[in-house]
């Protein structure tokens, strides 16, 4: 095979095109056997690499820096965790295999999910010694040793008994009914033997659960050492403050009175019916449970920890009993993701004083706005959002909850999808269904009313990106600091003479998807805020984006310049972003400055019914940046560049 052909294959390889097996073999042979060719290829790769980094894309550089500090934060978080584990080491090392206490199966401590970093190393501060890992490994080895010992100790009772323990752990308090061969096997073993093994495990678990509940009842102000002390050592007394903030909890207590909490006694003197978990384990569990992770943060956003306020950065873990706060600037925003994909978004001027797991997720929302997309929760463990005026119980839905600083305005709950139960301080409850709103406030009757949706603002972080054409990028000039960015597109606009022929967007593999609640039977003007490269004579690098609204009726009067294929797809193209120096609003129709149609009436759409709607964005020409979509029943003229919502 000649050199030209090998170089052609190399060019193909370099641009990411897959080679056939014959081509790969040819390229391998050429590369191995022809030294000159090999040098040629290696030098070409060098130039290729230099070219790739020659013209720094500011967005890519910013993204690189952001990613780096995100990873740094995640690593730092992990190293703090490791240090805490190390601080427990002397206690664990004193555990003797002969000590019955050490035989007790430890309650499963929920180990937090690994951060996105692929390499593990201690990195709390620059220059932190990697030797700290040694202690971590020693601890892990010791712990594993104890577990293995425990395994062999209990194995004398046989597999069946282990199964029984496992069953009893799953259903504590329930008497299991052995049947068939299993019952016979169990009958062959002395019953006391089984209980001897099962009881400590069960009791240790019950004890831990009881303590966890006690701990989660106390509301701790971050940075309050006295409260911290109380939370970690002394079982709290029920307080009026708790009753005010947790009406649900009060209601439960009245219905199912619990025994009063025991007076605080030193741990050593407390009688224990069975050996318990090692000292420190409980505190470890209460403080180390990772509840969620910061997914996005913009502006002034803080994690409220025991040590005080810490700037919240993407990738940071939120532990049980920590809180969140956003600043007063308009762009301040924080998105939190739970392991079950439940997502909550805090708007500006919001304070969630505590997030915890207590028979489900629980948020104490002091003020501000929280929008939540809640994945389906177990029925017995709904997500609770407690505010100073009431409590919302969520099983799985999309909602927005606003706590007004004015107590007369109270807490407003808007449900986009699903059902949410709202309870006020008087104990009255109302079921709020999708498209409805209810207000819990002093002197306001608690009723659900139909929600009139006149203004819908959709931002990049609410979108779902399907396939690879679109990505979320940081952009300081975008609203909220984030934009949807299409670097390339496979869509083709054919030119026939002076006419542009648009293909269908219906089966495009990559797009941006928004789901939102909107009313049916009313007209919404559609505005897109976007950015483009400067105009080029052939319009091939200027941004062009199609808005597809499946099932909606597009106003045909406004779609005068729209292509029929797109219109048939319930879609319309938005172009002309290049006319703005940065981001600007485009109304879709009539955005052709060369035809003098700059500020004509924008596209309007009408949904056939109220409920959850879908809107898709397709990149028709790239690169394109979009930072907001606005559907409005009132905004019929072009908004100001900085305007977002009425």
């Amino acid at each position, binding site marked *: 095979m000649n050199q030209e052909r090998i170089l052609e294959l190399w060019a193909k390889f370099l641009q990411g095109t897959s080679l056939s097996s014959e081509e790969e073999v040819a390229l391998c042979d050429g590369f191995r056997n022809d030294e000159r060719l090999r040098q040629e290829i290696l030098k070409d*790769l060098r130039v290729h690499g230099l070219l790739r*980094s*020659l013209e720094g894309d500011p967005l890519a550089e910013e993204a690189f820096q952001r990613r780096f500090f995100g990873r740094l934060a995640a690593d730092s978080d992990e190293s703090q965790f490791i240090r805490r584990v190390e601080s427990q080491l002397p206690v664990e090392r004193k555990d003797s295999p002969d000590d019955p206490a050490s035989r007790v199966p430890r309650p499963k401590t929920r180990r937090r999910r690994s951060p996105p970093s692929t390499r593990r190393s201690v990195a709390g501060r620059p220059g932190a010694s990697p030797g700290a890992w040694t202690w971590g490994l020693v601890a892990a080895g010791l712990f594993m040793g104890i577990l293995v010992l425990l395994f062999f100790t209990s194995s004398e009772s046989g597999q069946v008994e282990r199964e029984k323990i496992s069953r009893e752990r799953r259903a504590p308090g329930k008497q299991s009914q052995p049947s068939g061969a299993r019952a016979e096997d169990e009958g062959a073993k002395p019953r006391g033997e089984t209980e001897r093994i099962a009881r400590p495990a069960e009791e240790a678990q019950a004890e831990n659960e009881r303590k966890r509940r006690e701990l989660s009842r106390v509301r701790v102000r971050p940075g309050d050492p006295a409260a911290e002390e109380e939370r970690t050592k002394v079982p709290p007394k029920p307080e009026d403050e708790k009753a005010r903030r947790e009406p649900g909890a009060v209601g439960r207590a009245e219905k199912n009175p619990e025994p009063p909490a025991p007076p605080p006694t030193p741990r050593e003197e407390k009688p224990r019916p069975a050996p318990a978990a090692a000292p420190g384990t409980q505190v470890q569990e209460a403080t180390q449970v990772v509840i969620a992770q910061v997914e996005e943060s913009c502006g002034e956003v803080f994690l409220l920890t025991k040590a005080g306020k810490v700037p919240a950065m993407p990738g940071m873990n939120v532990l049980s009993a920590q809180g969140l706060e956003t600043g007063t600037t308009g762009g301040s925003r924080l998105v939190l993701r739970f392991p079950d994909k439940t997502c909550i978004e805090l708007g500006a001027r919001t304070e969630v004083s505590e997030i915890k797991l207590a028979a489900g997720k629980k948020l104490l929302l002091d003020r501000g706005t929280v929008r939540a997309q809640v994945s389906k929760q177990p029925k017995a463990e709904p997500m609770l959002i407690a505010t100073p005026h009431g409590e919302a119980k969520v099983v799985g839905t999309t909602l927005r909850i606003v706590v007004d600083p004015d107590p007369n305005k109270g807490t407003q709950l808007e449900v986009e999808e699903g059902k949410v139960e709202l309870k006020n301080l008087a104990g009255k409850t109302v079921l709020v269904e999708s498209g409805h709103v209810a207000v819990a406030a002093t002197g306001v009757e608690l009723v659900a009313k139909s929600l009139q949706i006149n203004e819908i603002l959709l931002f990049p972080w609410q979108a779902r990106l399907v396939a690879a054409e679109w990505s979320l990028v940081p952009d300081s000039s975008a609203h909220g600091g984030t934009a949807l960015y299409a670097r390339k597109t496979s869509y083709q606009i054919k030119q026939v003479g002076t006419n542009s022929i648009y293909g269908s967007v219906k089966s495009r593999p990559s797009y941006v998807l928004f789901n939102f609640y909107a009313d049916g039977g009313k007209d919404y003007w559609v505005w897109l805020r976007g950015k483009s490269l400067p105009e080029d004579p052939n319009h091939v690098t200027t941004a062009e984006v199609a808005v597809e609204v499946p099932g909606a009726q597009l106003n045909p009067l406004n779609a005068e310049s729209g292509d029929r294929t797109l219109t048939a797809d319930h879609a319309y193209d938005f172009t002309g972003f290049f006319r703005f120096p940065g981001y600007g609003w485009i109304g879709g129709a009539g955005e052709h400055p060369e035809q003098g149609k700059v500020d004509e009436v924008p596209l309007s759409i009408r949904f056939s019914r109220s409920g959850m709607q879908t809107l898709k964005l397709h990149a028709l020409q790239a690169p394109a940046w979009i930072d907001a979509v606005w559907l409005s029943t009132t905004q019929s003229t072009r908004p100001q560049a900085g305007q977002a919502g009425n």
Partner: protein
Amino acid sequence: MEQEERLVEQARRGSHEAFRELLRLHQGRLRAYLSGYIWDRDAADDLAQESFLAAYRNLGGFRGEAPFGLWLLRIARNHALAYLRNEGRRRAHEQGKFVPVLANALASCAELGEGDLDSPDREIQALRTCVEKLPAHSAELIRGYYFKNRSVVDMGRELGKGKSAIGMTLLRIRTALRQCMESRLAATEAEA
């Protein structure tokens, strides 16, 4: 240089802002260096991240005997070597596959290429000048592919050519740029 030393000192004391500035100053040359050995763009970016993280963690061990940038490139080279050896080893069993062959060859180059470490700046400067001197048509192709991230398919469609043809044209332009760059570097060295 004094400013850089100050930034390193501040970063060592825990200043994120100082390290952000160091990252901004050096990310271009670091990525340029890595991209010369790592053909996969995402992998090169990942290694650049790893290199900066390693530098951050080990700032305490940086004695300032060599410039910070050179120290950083040495870290990057170690990461690149580890990646290439791993790629070579991991896919060694894949008969007739090009990636392990290329990875092993590049690992050997990186191992021997201590001299490359102080060259990215000069190379970038020379290459920049050479790109400016390209004929308009070639410059447009290079800008489109490398600076505007356009695909060869798009550019081919625009020019009425297939993607293989565009790929080969880019290869020829790169060869011309390399020759131009080498002669400029040789001339600079002769002057020095």
